[in-house]
């Protein structure tokens, strides 16, 4: 099994369609999928760490390392945040921005 605690928050369909429409081989396609996966991952980590008070960073990283799939991590983060917004909403909105940014850079630039 392969799952990350934030998988249900990602839906970068449009980018997927664009990539599929450009590359020619399955190997190329999978290579680029992995690159996007890593971009998303770094973005989500940044997004969480930007908002989580520093004293909880190590606890978050340990939880993430031990059970990267555990959606309970979201509950942990929400408990430590001062703001009312759930981290789920923040991640969703940041990833939507990221997708637009990538698409714009790729196809308008």
């Amino acid at each position: 099994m392969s799952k990350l605690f934030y998988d249900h928050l990602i839906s970068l369909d449009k980018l997927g369609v664009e990539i599929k429409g450009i590359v020619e081989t399955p190997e190329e396609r999978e290579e680029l999928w992995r690159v996007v996966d890593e971009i998303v991952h770094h973005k989500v980590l940044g997004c969480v760490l930007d908002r989580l008070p520093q004293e909880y960073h190590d606890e978050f990283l340990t939880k993430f390392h031990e059970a990267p799939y555990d959606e309970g991590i979201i509950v942990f983060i929400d408990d430590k945040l001062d703001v009312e917004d759930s981290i789920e909403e923040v991640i969703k909105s940041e990833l939507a921005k990221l997708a637009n940014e990538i698409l714009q850079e790729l196809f308008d630039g």
Partner: protein
Amino acid sequence: MTKAARKNRDKKKVSADKLRSKLKLKHLAVKEKLSGAYPHVDRFFKSKNLDPGKIRDHSARVLGAGAMAGMLFLRPPSGMLALPSPKEIIEKFKDEKSIARVRASHRLLVNTLNSVLPKRPRPLTRQEEKFLEQIFANIAGVKTRATLEGEHLNTTYGYIGAEQHLRRYPGDTLLQHGKGEMLKEGIAPGLGAWGYFAYSKKEMTPYLEEVEKWYAVVQTLYLPDWNTRTRYLREWYKYRKVLIVDVDNGRAVVASVADSGPAAWTGKHFGGSPEVMHYLGGSRYKKGRVVLFFVDDPENKIPLGPVDYENVPIAGVIN
């Protein structure tokens, strides 16, 4: 190759290269931004000997090592109840007055699935999968396995998304894949994970036509042992028969695995050919909640395509 085709191919190639380099630059930028802002994150992952970019592989290893199975038996995931026996649950819904005579089996299957599955897809426990194997055999009349010959997908319950037709042989075009609504999704510009189905149109067989028509996409690329057992797994998954059941309407189809994907960040876990998707949910069906199990069919007797189980006698329960 004509001059125009060559020009088009070169143009495409440049675009693919540009796409790759832009994505890699973006990757580098977000990675550096994170390391710059939070150097202790780098130190943390280094101390664990883990490349944060490979976190998905790490997750697969953690789960695959059996931690999940052990943990799940001790602490059921949220939304999972103690499962009654398949017979009990079938009896319960059979007796409900709400079951119309028409499409009764579909309703029975939908009610059963929704009584045991969480609303939001997640990997199922072994216990839940065993239960569903019995349900599919009893109601739909198809013998399935979540784990077949030791192989198991990353998840057996997830979202399926619409795919395009696949090129079956060099020179294949969209218009040769049917007509009307079946052509709406178009044809994928690249090949499926197993390449062409045949070297030429002449070598196409009715079986291969059916395979493309009723094809499924599964995430072989994220299998924890894909990189170490590639050759074996490639062969094992090629055209492997799977049963796909939409948990919201009970429609079921037997499909064959003919491509790898979708990417994890699309929010989907499986893909279906235009024909598969059309059967599962009609012309507007682009995404649906499904269970996908391997079909246990060593003698290759179960045909690809829709499973019409309306008249299948339900084993031991309904005559």
